[in-house]
């Protein structure tokens, strides 16, 4: 299917993502932050679809929005947040942090304006999305087999680590 009104959707989704991101780092209540982050993640999944990466979009929804964020919400509800809402929200070095981030932002701006030549000017259509999943699968289980196994090992370690951490006594 040919894309419809690409610029419109791009700007809409970008606005959603940025608004969500700003809310994440400014809300007092972590639950509100989490919901803003979910908005960002869903908008990003839609952007993946625009980039002809349907499988990554699906993984983004099922893993990030459906899995990781539920975990976040679960933990937020487990730790009582009433007291932390009343406390100071930003740490004492916040000024330094903002300055550092601004410097980094300046660096990005510099790179993107000076180095425009390095980037393609024209958005191009990728090949058929129809076999995206199949191609990804053959890459993942072929060329990247070893990395895949390492990733599963990482997950195993993470599971054991999380269980040990959450146990009654350490």
């Amino acid at each position, binding site marked *: 299917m040919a894309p419809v009104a690409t610029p419109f959707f791009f700007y809409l989704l970008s606005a959603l993502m940025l608004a969500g991101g700003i809310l994440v780092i400014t809300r007092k209540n972590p639950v*509100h932050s989490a919901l803003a982050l979910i908005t960002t993640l869903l908008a990003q999944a839609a952007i993946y679809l625009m980039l002809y990466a349907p499988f990554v979009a699906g993984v983004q929804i099922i893993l990030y929005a459906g899995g990781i964020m539920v975990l976040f919400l679960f933990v937020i509800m487990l730790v009582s947040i009433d007291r932390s809402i009343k406390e100071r929200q930003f740490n004492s070095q916040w000024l330094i942090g903002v300055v550092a981030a601004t410097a980094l932002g300046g660096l990005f701006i510099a790179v993107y304006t000076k180095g425009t030549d390095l980037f393609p000017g024209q958005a191009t259509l990728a090949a058929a999305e129809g*076999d995206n999943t199949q191609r990804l699968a053959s890459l993942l289980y072929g060329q990247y087999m070893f990395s895949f196994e390492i990733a599963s090992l990482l997950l195993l370690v993470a599971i054991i680590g999380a269980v040990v951490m959450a146990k009654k006594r350490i």
Partner: protein
Amino acid sequence: MQSVIQYITSYLGSNQTPGAAGNLFWVFVYIMLVFGGLSVAVIAMNWLERKILAHMQVRLGPMRVGPHGLLQPIADALKLLLKEDLIPADADRVIFWAAPFMVVLAAFTVFVVVPFGPTHAITDMNIGILFMLGVSSLSVLGIVMAGWASNSHYPLIGALRSSAQMVSYEVAMGMAVVSVILMTSLNAAGTGTLSMIGIVQAQLAQHEWFIFKFFPLGLIAFFIFAVAMVAETNRAPFDLAEAESELTAGFHTEYSGFRWSLFFLAEYSAMIAVSSIAVTLWLGGWLRPFPNMLAGAGWEQFFSFIPGTSFLFLAALCFYSTARMPKHPYFRIQTIGLAGFGAVLGLVGLILFIPPVRAWVQDIFWFSAKVAGFMYLYIWYRGTFPRYRFDQLMKMGWKVLLPMGLGILILTAGVALYQQNLWHP
């Protein structure tokens, strides 16, 4: 004007879903049709659940509003819409407001890829089944939001239970689904598919519904999914999240009126959604029984009469009940109403006998009939089973269904490799 008409009619000849054809008008029509049909199905399900459950429990169920309580769901809907919409004083208003919409959104969006027929789906996605599982997993967010925003203990416990339950059963569910996707790859090219339509077509091509594939592997995978889907939709015997005897009503304790009805709507459409996944993956989707074994024009003719006949049967049932209505004048309006309902059903049945309609409606009929079977199972479970306890539920999910799912996955992969002659030890 001409071009508009041409744009609209250009789709009619194509053998694609409107989404794949990129025809916005027909996409819109299909969305309206699917969601309208879904709403009607939820209303019908509401009435049927109460009647069937009542008859299982030696009582009559709703009898007052309309003949045999047929108008009861409408009366209920009116009551819910007119009820005061309460928001607790200490609730988080925005999240409290947004939660039911989140749940409804997740439950309805899933239907975008449900294939009611080879071309009767809003769109066919390359990642169809992944999309369905992903989006339906979003409803847990809405439930958690509702439970947390109510700022009350019972909803909070309900939400925590529900999220833990849904996340755990999704894993077992995924295992069962992956084993089906492995089965779709048993063709010459050796490539499987995640597309919902592709999965049904693979069943047609392999001359076998996947529930019977590699017997009993397909059956066990189906069993795992059938258990997990009940847990996923928070229905009895896994309705811990809204266990009315423990948590009053679980995560929607503080909700009333319209918002509560949204949760209700979402629950039933989620039931229909997971049932249609099960039907698509294991029971051959829109395929009629024995499409290969009993092929040929004669059988084709025979099976094409079944939709109309079943509607005529329902109409006959209505007329029988009309004859049994009390003859007292007090019941006159009800009797006429029931007869009218029967007449409408009969008319629909007769329309379904007209040849073009007969051919056209086949797929949708078989798909709906299979989904309706699952709906009956849901009601049956509710009438029969006590409720599981939370730790038992978790134990079952992680210690029974997940290892079973893993075993099935490995075995299916092994058998599939063997069949493809790819097994070179």
